[in-house]
């Protein structure tokens, strides 16, 4: 055999081993390039083909990972991008993604990441450290004002990014930050070859709108953008260059297409899903869940109640100082009295809320970290108590008394206030109605004041012209750092009294101290202790009366393999590259 023939045979063998077909001319190039280091998933080995349709409650606005802020856009973008380090939605722990491995220096300030070799973008162009450096440059750019920019600041300074070589990138933090690797989750790596020019010309924020030619968009996610028809659908197609494979070495994803269809309401979503026109549904209320669950067998889908998630609902009071020159409203004295708030908490029938509003699919809360957040919830907090008797006793201690049916304060004024709630959020309105009834039981006259959503936020966070309000939070990361701005007294989302120049109370000062400290604690146990203490303080001083944490409810067409819905976002599609249709599924005609 001639050396040339041998070389050809070797080339052929390597060519075969590296997977999808490439042109003959590329065979030699492949000989020189290293075999791509793919991530092997652990799920069941599946079948290729089919598409997955899911409905969205609003239309997407952009395909730009840097500026996408609204939920539908992010839902779509997430399927087209890859990150260096990814948080596994099931285990809630960080794991390697585009970064094959990483090391954190002992002082916690230097993270060195080794990238996977041979990975390509969805348009076939190679991925290397230059793309990483470029991406972080974009995210940290002042003029672009990406929401991720602030997340990538540690100790008041942006993270310094340095290319060490083609496959290694070094990140330097101004100070140690606990869970630093979690920062990289969902920071999409951008293709330098497509966006460099736009960035240089200052046009990057406008790039990649929905009317962009698909060929001009590329990413490292399991799917790539195929088409968008206004008001009707957004279609993503399989990324043939995706860097994950299953246990048999087959390139993922299994599905051919992802289709996102805008519908205007939850009811419309339910109808589509029920009729077989959508393959998955999430973020539905308990009533719709029960209505769908009744027909599961007949209609060929499965509904799953994943138990409590990360969301929590709460009632809080306006404790802000009155505007300069105005007299303090009488209610301010009540709202600032911890005993008053504790009494309100005792009067509320959380079981009733869970049953009437969520049909039992919610758990009463004592503190702000719901049981769905397994790693961080303080399991030693006493469960919430429902006792109007104790509430009345406590109020009497604080100087209130009953005059017939009405509760009056020490000056004889009837205790009366309005509870602000978003008019579009039926669930919160229902909670408000239940609470109103509970408070009437102890003589407090509460009015439910539904407000248009933005008008309500303005009143709470801007003009501070409200008395009490009900909100819901959650859905972000499980890590305590995600809600730093809620618990720091200087935080803008410190709802009852935001942006304090100095902590107004001793316990708020204590929370400040603990939250700041835990940011730089590197050991999980230490952080947990500190955060447990924060939860205790919050539960005792009741700045927000925590109500319930709803269960996460999802549904999917029967026969979807590797379906492992999780409590974190994206509940159904977090492992979309592994999802596949079993033989003969789905049964409804396409």
């Amino acid at each position, binding site marked *: 055999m001639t050396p040339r023939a041998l070389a050809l045979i070797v080339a052929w063998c390597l060519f075969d081993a590296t997977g999808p077909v490439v042109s003959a001319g590329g065979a030699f190039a492949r000989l020189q390039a290293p075999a791509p280091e793919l991530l092997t998933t652990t799920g069941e080995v599946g079948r290729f083909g089919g598409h997955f349709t899911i409905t969205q409650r609003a239309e997407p606005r952009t395909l730009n990972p840097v500026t996408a802020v609204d939920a539908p856009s992010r839902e779509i973008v997430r399927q087209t991008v890859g990150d260096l380090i990814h948080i596994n939605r099931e285990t809630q722990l960080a794991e390697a993604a585009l970064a094959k491995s990483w090391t954190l220096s002992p002082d916690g300030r230097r993270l060195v990441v080794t990238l996977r070799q041979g990975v390509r973008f969805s348009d076939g162009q190679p991925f290397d450290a230059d793309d990483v450096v470029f991406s972080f440059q974009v995210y940290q750019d002042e003029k672009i004002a990406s929401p991720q920019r602030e997340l990538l600041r540690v100790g008041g300074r942006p993270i310094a990014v340095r290319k060490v070589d083609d496959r290694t990138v070094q990140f330097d933090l101004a100070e140690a930050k606990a869970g630093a690797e979690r920062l990289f989750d969902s920071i999409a790596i951008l293709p330098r070859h497509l966006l460099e020019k736009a960035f240089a010309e200052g046009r990057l924020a406008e790039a990649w709108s929905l009317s962009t030619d698909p060929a001009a968009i590329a990413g490292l996610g399991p799917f790539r953008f195929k088409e968008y028809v206004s008001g009707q659908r957004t279609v993503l197609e399989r990324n043939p260059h995706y860097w994950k494979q299953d246990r048999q070495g087959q390139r993922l994803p299994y599905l051919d297409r992802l289709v996102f269809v805008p519908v205007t309401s939850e*009811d419309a979503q*339910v*109808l589509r899903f029920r009729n077989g026109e959508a393959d998955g549904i999430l973020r539905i*209320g308990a*009533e*719709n869940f*029960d*209505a769908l669950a009744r027909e599961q067998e007949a209609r060929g889908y499965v509904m799953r109640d994943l138990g409590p998630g990360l969301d929590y609902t709460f009632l809080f009071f306006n404790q802000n100082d009155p505007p300069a020159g105005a007299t303090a409203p009488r209610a301010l004295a009540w709202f600032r009295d911890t005993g008053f708030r504790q009494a309100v908490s005792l009067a509320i*029938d959380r079981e*009733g809320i869970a*049953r*009437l509003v969520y*049909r*039992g699919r919610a758990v009463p809360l004592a503190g702000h970290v719901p049981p769905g957040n397994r790693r961080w919830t303080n399991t030693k907090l006493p469960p919430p108590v429902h006792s109007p008797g104790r509430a009345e006793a406590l109020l009497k201690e604080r100087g209130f008394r009953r005059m017939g049916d009405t509760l009056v304060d020490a000056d004889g004024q009837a205790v009366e206030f*309005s509870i*602000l709630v978003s*008019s*579009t959020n039926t669930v919160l*309105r*229902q909670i*408000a*109605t*239940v609470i*109103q*009834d509970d408070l*009437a039981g102890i003589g407090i006259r509460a*009015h*439910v*004041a*539904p*407000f*248009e959503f933005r*008008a309500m936020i303005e009143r709470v966070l801007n003009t501070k*012209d*409200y*008395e009490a309000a009900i909100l819901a939070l959650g859905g972000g990361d499980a890590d305590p750092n995600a809600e730093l701005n809620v618990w720091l007294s200087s935080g803008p989302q410190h709802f009852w009294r935001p942006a304090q120049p100095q902590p107004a109370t001793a316990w708020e000062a204590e929370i400040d101290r603990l939250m700041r400290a835990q940011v730089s604690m590197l050991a999980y146990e230490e952080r947990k202790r500190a955060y447990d203490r924060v939860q205790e303080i919050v539960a005792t001083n009741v700045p927000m009366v925590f109500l319930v944490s709803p269960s996460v409810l999802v549904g999917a067409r029967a026969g979807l393999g590797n379906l492992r819905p999780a409590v974190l976002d994206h509940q159904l599609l977090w492992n979309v590259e592994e999802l596949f249709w079993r033989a003969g599924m789905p049964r409804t005609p396409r």
Partner: protein
Amino acid sequence: MTRLRTSVGLLAIVYVAAATAGFLAPYDPAEQNRRYPFAPPVKVHVLDAAGSIHRRPFVYELRPRPGTFDEYDEDRERPLEIRFFVRGTPYRLAGVVPSTLHLFGVEGSRRVFLMGTDEYGRDVLSRLLHGAGISLGAGLLAAAAAVSLGLVIGSIAGYYGGASDMLAMRAAELVMAVPSLYLLLALRAALPLHLAPADAFVLLVAVVGAVGWARPALLVRAVVSTVRTRDFVVAARSSGASDVHILARHVLPQAAGVALTQFALLVPQCVLAEVTLSFFGLGVSEPAPSWGTMLADLQRFHILAAAYWWLFLPAIAIVAVFLLYYSITDALHQRLMLRS
């Protein structure tokens, strides 16, 4: 003739019922019976277990079926007699006279839900009766205000023509063109945080009146502009009758048909408009019941799919009342035609 009388009579009964809602309704419309959400209406029995007629009609208490959220069984061990003229939850008759007398009820603290309960376990019958007040009152006034205003403006515009016509019609167009939703947002911002029910009432009438006059005005004007040149009008003018006189005696009755039809169409729209106002926080707020919200609450998939059929009973009652309004306007129309 008799049709008008019967319809008015029936409507009067409805209004009296609305005013005496506290007495007719067995319970407070805000009372939440949390163990009984979505309870179906109870069956009233007359024959007891032995088959003989019981001295009073009675019902069986409902027992929630364990493990379910909205399913109940009759508890055969616990018959409850329905008594009349019982003492119950206090209320104010017509909003003024305090009383605790109710038309019917069952002993002690038990409950009988003749029309079932809603999602909070509130008695649907009580809510239907109490909700009639604001819907009948405000809805009627709002529709009357809108149509009256439209009638006057449309008549003037159609009769005089020229500049006043242009002005009035363009103003009507402006009113119809602006998406009032946006203006309601601004309006809400200008108002205080909590609106008393009386304020909500006035607001409904004012807002609907301010917006609702446009379409009746357009239609009335079209009719009046043809009447203007008719022989009898010309004759009346030439005999020296004043414009007002002509308008009132000759022109308006011609437009009456259109105006009355618009009125009968507007009343239900006004009742529903209350729901839109509530969205912006301008309507009646919980726990006060209103027909508009009771109807709007039905438009959820899980309600329609779950066969909570008793929640549609109020719809039947409400439709019946609107039929009465229609009947009255139709009969009035006939009357007016006969007269002219």
